């Protein structure tokens, strides 16, 4: 079955620390990859996406993610976090072939950034 794993449930950082959130998916083939963010009290919004091309994608607010096909991974990074990055982050994968074209979400990683 298709699945998406986010390794960390809760990450706590101080401002200016670097961030890396892991995301792995269950099997290969052509995939569309997404990171979503949910700030406290707000709706889910798209942070960045990968469909094809350069495996290093840049999103909003200084976030980036790298697609490593051989590792079935799409990790999210930010070189220097801010207090305003406190939120829950969700990785999501859509398998383009052999799948049901449904978006499968990871369980989320809660990020707390202390000032």
């Amino acid at each position, binding site marked *: 079955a298709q699945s998406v794993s986010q390794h960390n449930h809760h990450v706590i950082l101080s401002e200016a620390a670097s961030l890396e959130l892991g995301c792995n998916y269950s099997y290969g083939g052509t995939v569309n990859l997404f990171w979503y963010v949910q700030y406290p009290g*707000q709706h889910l919004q798209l942070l960045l996406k990968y469909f094809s091309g350069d495996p290093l994608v840049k999103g909003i607010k200084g976030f980036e993610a790298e697609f490593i096909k051989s590792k079935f991974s799409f990790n999210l990074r930010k070189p220097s976090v801010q207090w305003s990055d406190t939120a829950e982050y969700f990785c999501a994968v859509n398998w383009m072939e052999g799948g049901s074209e449904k978006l499968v979400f990871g369980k989320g990683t809660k990020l707390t950034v202390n000032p």
Partner: protein
Amino acid sequence: DVKVTQSSRYLVKRTGEKVFLECVQDMDHENMFWYRQDPGLGLRLIYFSYDVKMKEKGDIPEGYSVSREKKERFSLILESASTNQTSMYLCAISRDPTYEQYFGPGTRLTVT
């Protein structure tokens, strides 16, 4: 700007009541989705619709039904609410099922 609105932000219902959650979009997207979001479980797909009057079951359809009579409107129905359906319900839309989805603000439903 994409606009996805949901009928209520907060809802409290009693066990056994019939509950309607409504989602309306202004983007003319074919695809609409209902998810529930629970702490530690992420988002789980309940139902989706790729066209008017068309629907497909998601991963957890039991206890729910949906209706899509107009392109812009997608309703989630809890035929007989139970306490284990207390959750945050999110509606989403997309132009294509493989593209990014845009989410509404969510309805926090409490069933007592």
